[in-house]
């Protein structure tokens, strides 16, 4: 007899005595399914409660890229001379890890150029900012005294004729532990950045400008601030 035939016979013989009562089992299946469904509902309800509770205490939304940035102040347009009362005061609730001096070292200007072009701008836009600079440097000073403000300077660090973007001194506010909104006094434009502080370095990423997009030149200037991580140089 072939092995295949033996297998068929052996398997049938082994399975033959196996009898089970589906009637009794059905009750148990139904009970188990009901119980699991109840547990599932409970888990979902608990998750919803947790999310609602989290929202109620104002913890940040995680999806920074896809959400509308809530106004940083209670009125729009914001007070260009300083921040009005914030909707939720992250500065006092969370430790403001930005406070202090931050600066890049002299970085090759081509790195800034690459960052500007990566943001969808042209080489000409980059040249408008960088001119003939071979090295580029940025310094940002965040301070809380007199309302949170950030002073930003960027300049040609190649030692050639000084090429410097005018110093900006603007109010900022944290709208989450990793998001800040900087309000430019000159144009009443709000610039939203996400940031990360890691290993003594500040990584900034420009997200968007409100209420209207920046000009290409202005965008290039802002991108130039964020082209490289800044190191803490003073508190």
């Amino acid at each position, binding site marked *: 007899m072939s092995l295949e035939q033996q297998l068929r016979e052996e398997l049938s013989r082994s399975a033959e005595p*196996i009898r089970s009562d*589906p009637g009794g089992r059905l009750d148990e299946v139904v009970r188990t399914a009901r119980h699991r469904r109840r547990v599932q509902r409970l888990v979902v309800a608990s998750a919803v409660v947790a999310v609602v509770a989290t929202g109620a205490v104002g913890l940040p939304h995680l999806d920074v890229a896809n959400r509308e940035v809530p106004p940083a102040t209670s009125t729009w347009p914001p007070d260009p001379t300083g921040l009005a009362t914030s909707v939720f005061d992250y500065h006092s609730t969370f430790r403001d890890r930005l406070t202090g001096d931050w600066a890049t070292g002299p970085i090759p200007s081509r790195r800034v150029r690459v960052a500007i072009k990566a943001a969808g701008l042209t080489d000409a836009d980059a040249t408008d900012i960088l001119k003939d600079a071979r090295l580029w440097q940025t310094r940002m000073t965040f301070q809380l005294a007199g309302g949170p403000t950030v002073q930003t300077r960027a300049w040609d660090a190649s030692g050639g004729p000084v090429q410097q973007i005018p110093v900006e001194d603007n109010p900022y506010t944290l709208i989450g532990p990793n998001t800040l909104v900087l309000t430019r006094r000159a144009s009443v434009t709000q610039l939203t950045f996400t940031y990360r502080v890691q290993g003594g370095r500040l990584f900034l990423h420009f997200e968007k400008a409100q209420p209207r997009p920046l000009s290409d030149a202005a965008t290039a200037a802002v991108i130039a601030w964020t082209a490289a991580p800044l190191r803490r140089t003073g508190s």
Partner: protein
Amino acid sequence: MSISTTLPPVAAERTPDYAVLFQREFPKVVRTVYLVVRDHGRAEELAQEAFVQLLMHWKKVSGYDRPEAWVRRVAIRLAMRSSTRERLRSVLERRAVVEPPPGEGVDLSEALGQLSAPQRAAIVLHYYEDRPVDEVADILVCSVNTVKSHLHRGRNKLRVLLGECEGDLDES
């Protein structure tokens, strides 16, 4: 027991279908699972678990052409997982036992127990349930060639264990 009052609301309207399917398929699934796991109690538990999952997905699965194929696939997968776990657990125990050399005192039933879980599942579905290879592949969620390989290696291993031919038992 009135089933319509005890089922979850979602499944309630389909209760008669589910109950009919359960009565018809449960014993068959238990037998198939038994041949894979070789333990009656465990086979019933695993089959029951598969039917619980079927009931929880009944709204969707009842729309399929053959809901019984769905539950069988779940049951076989549970059986293979359980069998693999059991096999790993018994590795140390088997080391302590002096196994008879191939061909001496090993019958086909014992030899079947020494196959890997996928080989055993493929053999059960193909030789016991008379399913064509492509259907077995569908149930085991693998390719037709993989099923053919499981069947071929399984048969070879059985031949070696039964002493019908020389071979390498570690090929699985």
